[in-house]
């Protein structure tokens, strides 16, 4: 403590010390005068006895123990002064550092928010989700029905609660004049308690809200929703709003910072489970022997709820085994009378608890790997930048050689010189780090926007909190040490003034500098190769033939269920839509379907064919209007399309895809065969060529198409219009036509299908774009580094060149000599880069499509590009060397 005080009162203490030493001197003088010496003689003797005033002061100051910090601060001031004297270098260095450190911090902060950060709930490591399924299932299954949740809850001790939540779905929130689409989630009354999330205003849901008979319809809003739709009006709590037309009371606002359990998909509204039917909420569900048009809550056949529970580490096994036992008992009972195939398959199912500390995140799986690759790339760029800065600092140090020599002569110890050298690089790093915060913030936002899979930007809070700032600070420190160490060490070993040979200039070949340049080239090769791979991958994806005319289809996503249409009104609605859109100029034909192309929304069903012993297998279903395949450009390879004759009441027909036919029957010559969910109720009337109706990257589905007319209770969600000419211009016209024909029909989106497919490639676009940017940066930095080293060596050898030229050498031979010199660096660098590529290509294997990571075309391109850049960078100083004026060079010696 006293030490700190001494540090802060340095100046006062210095004054004290000075006065004390001088006082001592005076007293000594007085004493000597008293013993008879003259004034001058006494003073001289006193001075001799004391030793130099400054020496004593210095020694005392050392004894004070604060001189480390004082020296460091003095070094920093000195570094700032000398940096100010070379503004060009300083600015370039700070910018390089800011961009390098900022880019790294930006990628790191996004990675942190998406992959590493835990949920903002208390003791998030205690949260678990309940999951069931057979070990052979590809996707984990988290869905349970409400009655089943009750039975599982009964198997647990009273204190353990199973909170239930639906998937996140879209509803319309209406207040006064506004009617906005929001993401909503149905949750059980104890859900907020299980998570430990409280209310910022009002209250959250509790178990009293679960009782449908007694409770009023209430909702809880998120803090973001409150700010966005209500401007944080305190009167919101207690007011009434409409959810899909249903009046509900806002009973509270959740605590700020909580947006639900799915990372990247914030929830705005939470409502009790029993409101599902009243507001018409349809989230993800799997249904078995049930009626989705009736309330879901009491039906055991509709599994639509994810269950979460809180279990401290000690109790997890206990809770899990109780649940698993109960679940198994149910399975045994249910399948007691089923055939043996079904029973064996069913009994393979297990129930488990899965840790949920970091929430659910579909984005995490998608973006985890690319972000890690980007983190590596941007780290490499920073390394390359450090190498450049190290080289620059060393060149500066060489230029200041005289000054350092003088210091050594005055008694500076190597340790002191090292500290001084380091403080300059650390100061630069600190300044760069400060500016990098702004770069990191902007970069993070830009990165998120580029990574958004839909037109709505992903909401991840990228606050500049202590973690991010701490990362930036540590990175700045490490960077400063990294590029400052070598130059500082070199300065520390300097010889005192006069000891270095003057006269003949020593030809430094800067071996360290060459090694740095070679490694820069190697790293750049890796980055350029990776970037080319990603660009090619993106191109390959974009060129994939989806199996339909994606760039000629305008798709409108509508929501007739939300608008409240009844079943009887649907045929009329469909007729009006087809007529309205068909009338738009440029539209060649129109179709309706349950799920549109490229949306990623699917309906899966289990199908069997007669005589099949393998049990039911999965297929994907869609319901379409007559002429649909011609409209979207899917090719029929056998049989026919649907026509108006395929009406409700007549025998049900289907068109299947080739994949479906081959999977079930082994051939695609299946017109006339029958299949169904249980009984063979559908007849195949046509076989269509395989198409990527989901996202481009997903596997080709086994499709079953039914006529929309034969399913009168289905709400078509998509209008597809085949257009001639510029599809982009017709988008607005289609939207206007629908709005005019049916003003009360909500339109979610009107797009070209090719745009929709591209949106599904946002991950690949992100990789290609960013990897391209980073590799360009790396290439530029490596070129600058190479230029610097060659220029330096040319400068050192300029009198040698002058002599050669004076003796009659041809200029281009000089050029060739210099170039040949640097060729070594380039070749070694490229070779090392290729070696480095071997382990790296394993990392990116999952991210490429349509080519192998060791694609020779890509590698040769990268090698050639780097060789070209290297030759250019080295040619410039070489060319200047060849034009040296011999007389001037000789004079400069």
């Amino acid at each position: 403590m006293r030490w700190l005080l001494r540090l802060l009162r340095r100046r006062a203490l210095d004054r004290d010390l000075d006065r004390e030493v001088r006082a001592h001197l005076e007293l000594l003088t007085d004493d000597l005068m008293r013993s008879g010496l003259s004034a001058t003689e006494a003073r001289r003797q006193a001075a001799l006895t004391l030793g130099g005033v400054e020496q004593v002061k210095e020694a005392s100051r050392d004894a004070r123990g604060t001189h480390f910090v004082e020296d460091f601060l003095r070094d920093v001031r000195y570094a700032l002064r000398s940096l100010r004297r070379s503004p060009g270098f300083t600015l370039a260095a700070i910018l390089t550092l800011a961009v390098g450190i900022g880019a790294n911090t930006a990628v790191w902060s996004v990675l942190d928010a998406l992959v590493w950060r835990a949920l903002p709930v208390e003791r998030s490591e205690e949260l678990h989700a309940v999951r069931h399924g057979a070990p052979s299932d590809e996707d984990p299954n988290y869905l349970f029905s409400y009655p089943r949740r009750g039975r599982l809850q009964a198997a647990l001790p009273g204190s353990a609660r199973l909170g239930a939540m639906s998937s996140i779905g879209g509803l319309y929130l209406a207040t006064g004049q506004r009617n906005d689409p929001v993401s909503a989630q149905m949750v059980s009354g104890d859900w907020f308690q299980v998570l430990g999330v409280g209310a910022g205003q009002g209250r959250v849901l509790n178990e009293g809200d679960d009782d449908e008979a007694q409770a009023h319809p209430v909702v809880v809003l998120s803090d973001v929703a409150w700010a966005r739709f209500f401007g944080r009006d305190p009167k919101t709590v207690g007011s009434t709003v409409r959810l899909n037309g249903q009046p509900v009371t806002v009973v509270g606002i959740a605590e700020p910072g909580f947006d639900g359990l799915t990372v990247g998909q914030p929830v705005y509204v939470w409502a009790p489970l029993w409101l599902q039917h009243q507001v018409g909420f349809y989230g993800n569900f799997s249904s078995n022997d049930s009626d989705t048009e009736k309330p879901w809550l009491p039906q055991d056949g509709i599994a639509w709820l994810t269950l979460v529970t809180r279990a401290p580490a000690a109790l997890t096994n206990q809770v899990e085994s109780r649940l698993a036992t109960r679940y198994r008992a149910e399975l045994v009972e249910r399948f007691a009378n089923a055939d043996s195939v079904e029973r064996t398959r069913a009994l393979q199912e297990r129930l488990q608890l899965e840790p949920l500390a970091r929430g659910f995140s579909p984005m995490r799986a998608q973006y985890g790997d690319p972000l890690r690759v980007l983190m590596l790339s941007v780290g490499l760029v920073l390394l390359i930048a450090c190498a450049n800065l190290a080289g620059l600092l060393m060149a500066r140090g060489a230029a200041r050689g005289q000054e350092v020599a003088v210091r050594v002569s005055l008694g500076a110890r190597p340790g002191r010189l090292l500290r001084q050298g380091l403080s300059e690089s650390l100061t630069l790093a600190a300044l760069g780090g400060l500016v990098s915060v702004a770069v990191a913030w902007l970069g993070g936002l830009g990165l998120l926007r580029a990574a958004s899979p839909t037109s709505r930007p992903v909401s991840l809070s990228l606050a500049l909190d202590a973690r991010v700032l701490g990362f930036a600070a540590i990175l700045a420190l490490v960077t400063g040490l990294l590029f400052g160490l070598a130059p500082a060490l070199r300065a520390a070993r300097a010889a005192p003034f006069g000891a270095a040979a003057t006269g003949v200039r020593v030809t430094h070949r800067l071996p360290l500098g060459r090694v740095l340049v070679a490694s820069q080239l190697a790293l750049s090769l890796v980055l350029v190769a990776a970037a080319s791979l990603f660009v090619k991958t993106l191109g390959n994806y974009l060129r994939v033939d989806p199996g339909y005319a994606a760039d000629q289809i305008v798709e409108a996503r509508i929501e007739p269920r939300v608008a409240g249409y009844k079943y009887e009104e649907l045929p009329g609605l469909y007729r009006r839509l087809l007529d309205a859109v068909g009338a738009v100029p440029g539209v060649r034909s129109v179709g309706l379907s349950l799920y549109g192309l490229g949306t990623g929304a699917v309906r899966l069903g289990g199908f069997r064919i007669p005589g099949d012993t393998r049990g039911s297998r999965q297929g994907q279903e869609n319901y379409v209007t007559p002429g649909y395949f011609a409209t979207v450009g899917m090719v029929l390879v056998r049989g026919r399309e649907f026509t108006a004759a395929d009406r409700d009441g007549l025998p049900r027909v289907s068109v299947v895809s080739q994949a479906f036919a081959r999977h079930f029957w082994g051939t695609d010559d299946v017109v006339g065969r029958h299949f169904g969910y249980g009984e063979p109720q559908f007849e195949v009337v046509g076989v269509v060529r395989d198409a990527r109706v989901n996202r481009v990257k997903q596997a080709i589905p086994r499709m079953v198409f039914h006529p929309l007319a034969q399913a009168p209770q289905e709400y078509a969600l998509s209008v597809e219009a085949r257009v001639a000419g510029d599809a982009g211009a017709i988008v607005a016209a289609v939207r206007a036509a629908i709005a005019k024909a049916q003003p009360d029909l909500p339109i979610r989106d009107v797009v070209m299908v090719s745009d929709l497919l591209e949106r599904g490639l946002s991950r690949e676009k992100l990789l290609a774009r960013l990897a391209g940017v980073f590799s360009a940066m790396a290439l530029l930095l490596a070129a600058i580094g190479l230029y610097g080293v060659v220029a330096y060596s040319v400068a050192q050898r300029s009198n040698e060149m002058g002599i050669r030229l004076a003796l009659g050498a041809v200029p281009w031979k000089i050029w060739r000599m210099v170039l040949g010199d640097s060729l070594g660096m380039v070749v070694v660098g490229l070779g090392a880069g290729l070696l480095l590529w071997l382990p790296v290509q394993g990392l990116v294997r999952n991210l490429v499509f349509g080519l192998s990571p060791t694609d020779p075309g890509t590698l040769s391109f990268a090698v050639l590009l780097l060789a070209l850049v290297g030759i250019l960078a080295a040619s410039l100083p070489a060319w200047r060397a060849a034009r040296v004026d011999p007389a001037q060079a000789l004079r400069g010696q």
Partner: protein
Amino acid sequence: MAAPSTDVIPGTLDLLILKTLSLQPMHGFGIARRVEQISRGVFKVNPGSLLVALQRLERSGWLDAEWKQTENSRRARVYALTRAGRRQLELQAAEWSRRTSAVARLLRAEG
């Protein structure tokens, strides 16, 4: 033969300062003179090392210091012993007699 050294025995400067100040607070010059007096000229304290030692002892918390007027109306920094300093003095004095008696015993030993 060289003149006998008047330097303080290495390592004992702290002890001498603490002892001198235990009798009464005084400034640096006074301490040097007192040591010279009491040792009857055997030890002459080097003013430079004295000041350094005083800084060190102050840093360790064994001395307190403040500016005062002296007899000849000059200002000087006067040092006084703290309680911790008194304890340290006892410790160091005990250590000193332990070691010197050991040396004396060794010197008296025969064979």
